[in-house]
């Protein structure tokens, strides 16, 4: 018999758990650290697995499937739940027929996020139960439990992971998929599903009763378990924090919570009464700690462990053992390796021109946010998906003539389709003098190149309709829509200069595929080279911030007798031949390797 064990990431394990649960519809918008869940689920045949345009649509799609009696999964990163919060809070009232699991993948430490909000608060706020796995086996098991609880208690169930659980790998035992107990079909139940005030008022008491039932259930839920050890120290913990605490103090007593909302109060009270000193070890907010305190129990939590950022074994050990800060090994000051746009990236040309024009650039979420970093230094705001357009609109309305010609919004194609369309509609409707540059690289690049409604391809790789961004902008009422090739710097500068001066809405579509795209290529791929005889050492090419262009310190003169402090050189393994450096070179020193 085949070994049923494999080493899986938390995300792969959630996908496996959904598959084994007989999930029928799964929807998500890509976002670190959640993206691999749907990608992994897409490798199993059976369920409908889709990239939705945004998280709200993803959850609504999952809801529809669950109303129809099918098991459904919606997946998003922590800030994605903000987008999906509107349907979530009322889904809590309606309940469902087929099980619905909402995965929230939180990102403590902000490895790839704009904030580190603690989404456990959503469980309490929306009045839904939340499970939190500690490793990949639990990620799979809890996904299955979540579907069962969802149907048993007629509630959506949130499954919370964090970057460290989603992206760590550990051993998982696979099982065969089951046929879910609920039979899909159209069943009318308008009093439960039509949330008019009269109906919603009937549902709210049901919600409160359900939370009481769940709190009672939590007391005997096997995944809330006590592991007795030495009773000098008792640790209440969950998720990845459990693993860290167990690592550094295996001899202590543990109350390991698989369900972080609602809490098993009697279990906590009994555990607390039998240990000398009680700790809550949890990442980010004192979510469990405050509820334990509200029960009147003495507990150490955020007094011992940081409120900000990820925990790790050392931080947990310091808190539990009250260790003084250890003398740090003196690390030498080292050159940083910040994230950087790829060589040949189509965004680079746009940002070099925006930098040159010294515009105030309202930015958005995607690879192009890296345009903030020097030497391009051409992003002035970045808050959330789609915000660039609203920011530019607000600046226009607040500053009027003063801002005209000085502001541009940049937004990626996937981000525009996620939540930029309504912003642009508003610009047109409320007569804004706003220029929106859509950086259309034909993919969702930052999260690893996922498809979206503008790529002509579904998650499973089937051909589909490809929305035309220019026609869409025109349909919204934008009269001036221009498409530019971002590798043609002169054209980019000419178009941006003209459009930002317009006292009315305009859209510039910068169109070229992501340089990592496997489907399309806009650059030659043939590396360029610097003619050292001609290089004047002016550093213009270096201001593009391309990883393929380097500076070689070497005082002297070039072949034409021009004094220089060094010269530029191109790494032939990194260069993709995008030619931007050749375009900015005033000395004709950068050419193709064949001399052209």
């Amino acid at each position, binding site marked *: 018999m085949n070994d049923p*064990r494999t*080493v899986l990431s938390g995300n792969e394990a959630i996908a496996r758990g959904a598959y084994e649960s007989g999930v029928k519809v799964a929807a998500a918008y890509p976002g*670190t650290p959640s993206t691999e869940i749907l990608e992994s689920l897409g490798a199993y045949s059976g369920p409908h697995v889709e990239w939705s345009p945004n998280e709200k649509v993803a959850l609504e799609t999952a809801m529809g499937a669950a109303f129809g009696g099918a098991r459904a999964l919606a997946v998003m990163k922590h800030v994605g739940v903000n987008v999906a919060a509107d349907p979530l809070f009322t889904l809590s009232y309606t309940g469902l027929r087929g099980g619905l699991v909402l995965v929230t993948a939180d990102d403590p430490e902000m*490895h*790839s996020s704009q904030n580190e909000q603690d989404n456990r608060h959503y469980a309490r706020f929306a009045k839904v139960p939340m499970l939190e796995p500690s*490793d990949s086996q639990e990620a799979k098991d809890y996904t299955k439990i979540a579907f069962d609880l969802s149907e048993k208690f007629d509630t959506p169930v949130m499954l919370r992971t964090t970057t*460290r659980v989603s*992206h*760590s*790998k*550990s*051993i998982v035992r696979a099982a065969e998929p089951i046929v879910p107990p609920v039979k899909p079909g159209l069943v009318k139940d308008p009093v439960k599903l039509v949330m008019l005030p009269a109906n919603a008022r009937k549902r709210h008491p049901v919600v409160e009763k359900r939370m009481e039932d769940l709190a009672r259930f939590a007391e005997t839920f096997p995944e809330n378990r006590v592991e007795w050890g030495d009773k000098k120290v008792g640790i209440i913990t969950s998720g*990845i924090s459990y*693993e*860290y605490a*167990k*690592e*550094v103090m*295996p001899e202590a007593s543990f109350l390991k919570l698989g369900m972080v909302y609602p809490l098993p109060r009697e279990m906590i009270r009994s555990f607390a009464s039998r240990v000398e000193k009680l700790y809550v070890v949890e990442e980010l907010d004192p979510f469990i700690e405050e509820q334990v305190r509200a029960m009147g129990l003495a507990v150490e939590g955020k007094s011992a462990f940081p409120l900000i950022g990820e925990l*790790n*074994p*050392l931080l947990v*050990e310091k808190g539990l053992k009250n260790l003084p800060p*250890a003398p*740090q*090994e003196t*690390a*030498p000051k*080292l*050159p*940083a*390796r*910040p*994230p*950087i746009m*790829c060589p040949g990236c189509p965004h680079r040309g746009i940002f070099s021109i925006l930098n040159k024009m010294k515009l105030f650039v309202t930015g958005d979420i995607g690879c192009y946010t*890296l345009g903030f970093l020097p*030497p391009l230094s051409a992003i002035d705001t970045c808050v959330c998906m789609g915000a660039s357009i609203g920011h530019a609109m607000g600046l226009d309305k607040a500053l009027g003539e003063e801002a005209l010609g000085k502001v541009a919004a940049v937004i990626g194609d996937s981000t525009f389709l996620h939540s930029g369309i309504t912003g642009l509609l508003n610009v047109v409707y409320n007569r804004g003098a706003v220029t929106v540059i859509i950086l259309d690289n034909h993919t969702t690049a*930052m999260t*690893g190149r996922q498809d979206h409604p503008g790529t002509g391809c579904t998650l499973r790789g089937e051909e589909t309709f490809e929305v035309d961004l220019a026609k869409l902008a025109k349909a919204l009422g934008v009269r001036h829509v221009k498409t530019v090739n971002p590798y043609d710097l002169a054209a980019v500068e000419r178009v941006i200069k003209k459009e930002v001066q317009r006292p009315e809405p305009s859209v510039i579509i910068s169109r070229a595929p992501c340089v*990592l795209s496997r489907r399309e290529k806009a650059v030659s791929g043939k590396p360029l080279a610097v003619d050292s005889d001609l290089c004047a050492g002016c550093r213009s090419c*270096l201001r593009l*911030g391309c*990883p393929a*262009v*380097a*500076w*070689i*310190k070497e005082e002297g003169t070039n072949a034409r007798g021009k004094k220089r402090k*060094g010269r530029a050189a191109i790494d032939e393994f990194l260069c993709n031949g995008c030619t931007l450096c050749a375009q900015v070179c005033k000395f004709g020193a950068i050419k193709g390797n064949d001399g052209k």
Partner: protein
Amino acid sequence: MENRVTNILLVGVGGQGIILASEIMADVFMEAGYDVKKSEVHGMAQRGGSVSTHVRFGPKVYSPLIKEGEADIFVAFEELEALRYLSYLSPHPTILLNEQRLNPPGVSLGNEDYPADVKEVLSRRAKTFKTIPARDLAVRAGDVRAANVVLLGALHSILSIPEKVWTDHILKRFPPQAGPVNLEAFRLGKAS
């Protein structure tokens, strides 16, 4: 079977094949009968950023992260990156250093200098210190991309896990035509 957990820290630059190497390691340790966890930290960049991967195996592993000061084996795929993680090393670590330098942007732009004394610092810090010209050996094996498998060969030579478990899992990860090159890379790493 050893009854303690062995901590292996791999560091380098995105694109060097560190994550693939760590995935092969995790499969190998599971097959050899251990519990295993691995975790990586990488920034937003797809390529070129600093990468570190923690691999831990033993009878029972809790944390996927190595506690600072407890890495027993340190495999540095790039010289400068080796210096960034010194605080993770145990008092008597084994250090395997791939002799390769990749300039970070500040060095490429001429604003910063690449540290000069990487090998001295590491050899002073290590109980056992070994340098491996993984890139050259990979080229000799037939593909520069196999440098990560060269380093797996070097790692194999300091662990007691049957060679066949390694070679089986290496072959599983590559298309059949890339098999011989990677086996040769593994052999050269083992002999280095």
